[in-house]
């Protein structure tokens, strides 16, 4: 099943299981069914609880904050992750703060879903990965969908909490087939699942036992899939063995599975699609360097897109974004 469909099914389960769940967003309802068709069919089956809204991200998210304070479980779709800037104030100054401001007497469990990322030639304002601006916000959970995490589990875990969450879904993942671990394996490779106290999991994938892996690669979302493919090919064709660690929650991070891998491989590469400089990867690098000072075999490596505006030309875009080739180059550097 493709990722867009799996996410749609997860939303359907949420709507079915919990009457408090309400879906809001631009052009969600049928026949359009959302810009990436994730919500297709849902407004037909749940006409009162799946609603298209006017074009105002601040308003949509503000309304959701009110709904959440009143006991509903709003799930908002922001059509493109780039538009998160339009609801930044609602998220940072209101939704993430209410519970603390009212000393725990209220909760504001808004879930904001948004497609992110480039690679489609959509230009400077429809291609970004802006999650790095949200990963340091206190009391805000930032979660990233991937092919190896079941969206129903992710959504179920977030809904089980009473806190707000931003759910990043890379748009290039939507048409790809899910690749969930089965019997401890993904495509024949060993796949471990580590579930945090909040029920969100980190999947570790390795071709051979961890002791025989020389390095760890940490990545989420679409970059995790690019890294998985490269690592799989390098393992089979060249016996270059690295372990891929894919967290579903990228902030705050569950360090346990990362530490477990790095303490054995003693080498880490962090990959993300957001632009380089003051990144998720640099935070991980700082934390891991501090935790494993003296044990690492080389400095923690990071790879991110060039720190510039994303061009509309696909050729120029491919030259500055993290691509499969750049993922491979970054991996080869730590694989020596």
């Amino acid at each position, binding site marked *: 099943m493709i990722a867009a469909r799996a996410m749609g099914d997860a939303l359907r389960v949420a709507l079915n299981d919990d009457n408090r769940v309400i879906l809001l967003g631009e052009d969600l309802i049928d026949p359009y069914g959302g810009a990436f068709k994730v919500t297709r069919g849902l407004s037909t089956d749940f006409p009162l609880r799946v609603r298209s809204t006017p074009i105002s991200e601040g308003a949509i998210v503000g309304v959701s904050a009110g709904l959440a304070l009143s006991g509903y479980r709003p799930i908002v779709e922001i059509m493109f992750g780039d538009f998160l800037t339009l609801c930044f104030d609602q998220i940072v100054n209101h939704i993430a703060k209410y519970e603390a401001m009212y000393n725990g007497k209220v909760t504001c469990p808004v879930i904001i879903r948004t497609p992110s990322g480039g690679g489609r030639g959509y230009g400077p304002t429809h291609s970004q990965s802006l999650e790095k601006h949200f990963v340091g916000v206190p009391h805000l959970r930032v979660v990233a969908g991937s092919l190896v995490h079941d969206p129903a589990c992710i959504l179920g875990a977030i809904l089980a909490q009473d806190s707000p969450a931003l759910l990043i879904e890379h748009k290039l993942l939507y048409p790809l087939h899910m690749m969930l671990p089965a019997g401890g*394996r993904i*495509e*024949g*490779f*060993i796949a471990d699942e580590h579930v945090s106290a909040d029920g969100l999991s980190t999947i570790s994938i390795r*071709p*051979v*036992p961890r002791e*025989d892996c020389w390095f760890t690669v940490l990545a989420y979302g679409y970059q995790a899939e690019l890294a998985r493919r490269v690592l799989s090919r390098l*393992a*089979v*064709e*060249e*016996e270059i*063995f690295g372990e891929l660690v894919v967290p579903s929650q990228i902030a705050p991070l569950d360090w346990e599975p990362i530490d477990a891998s790095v303490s054995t491989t003693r080498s880490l590469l962090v990959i993300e699609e957001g632009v380089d400089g003051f990144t998720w990867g640099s935070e991980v690098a700082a934390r891991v360097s501090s935790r494993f000072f003296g044990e690492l075999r080389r400095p923690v490596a990071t790879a991110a897109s060039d720190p510039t505006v994303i061009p509309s030309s696909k050729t120029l875009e491919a030259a500055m974004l993290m691509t499969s*080739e750049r993922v*491979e*180059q970054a991996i*080869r550097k730590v694989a020596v």
Partner: protein
Amino acid sequence: MRPVLVPTSDVNSETGLLLAWHAGDRSKVDAGETIAEIETSKAIIDVPAPESGFILRAASEGAELRLAEPIARLFVDIDELERYSEQEQRRRAEVAEIGPRATEPARRRAAELGVDLASIAEEALITVGMVEAAAATTTAAVDLPDPLPGVAAVPRIALFGAGLGANQVIDILQRARSGTAVAVADDDPSRWAGEVMGVPVVGGFERFVALFGEGAYDAAIIAIASVSARAKLRDALEANGIPLANAIDPTTRIGAGVTFGTGNIVCAFCHFGVETVVGDNNFLSAYNSYDHHNKLGSDMATGPACTTSGLVMLGDRVRLGTGIHVEPRVEIGDDVQVASGSVIVASVPAGHAVKRRAVTTVVVPRRHDPGPQSMLISRTR
């Protein structure tokens, strides 16, 4: 569909490194157009398109590939290419369903060693190490031979590498009498317990180190032509405190003031002009001539008939092909690779390659010779 093979007769290399693609995947190329560059142990080879068509890449830049396998496929039209590509993807998807059972290097190694992959009980990916361990358990049943005792007062030499390089080194030692080859070791367990020119293959690197500890030999020589292997092994031997010895053919003409480091292999009819300084661990083939005041680095390998003028400097890990001439005062930097037949007139910075258009020899019957004896003329273009 036509496979694109690397045009090489380089018998020393089974694999090459794909340095760069010059033609885009699925792009149209003309016959003869250079589509890729491959680095082998001897040269950098330009790969031309054998005919016009659309190209489907079969390897990515930086990949180590087997020279016997196609690096790309050419199609008359783009539709044919897409059909092939789709089929290939379906086939891979089917393999992906169950996942690969063994790595590609492990499959090749199993074929070399005659190991049946089905005999290895492993749930995860089977690696070269597992294949070799499986082969070793069968090989270990045969007792590994001991080194030869050697001759009194002559240094006992052990060689690492039981390939064709070992024959050359043993031949040199037998003539030069500067040492006696008493043992050969090799990473390949299938060679263990065999012999090279009467010298037993005693095992792999571990045994090589152990035997030195037991005092079974006095010094080692690395009998492998690959410069990366030479450099790596030299480090490994040094780490274990094993000294290297030179093997210099007695036909070598050595001028006044010439100095040699250790671990050098100098084949027949070489010449070192006055005051030339030779580093360590070089494998210099026959008919190499380094004129006066040359300076050679370490871990180099050369083909036959390389000649330099005076005051030439060669860096570490330099690889020279066959039949190369170097002008005076030229400096060739570290890790430089020079294609066979080059004439080098200017210095080459470190890490660069000297390429040369391929010289093809065309063999044709003589047109105007009615005589009974068919004669062959070779001509170059």
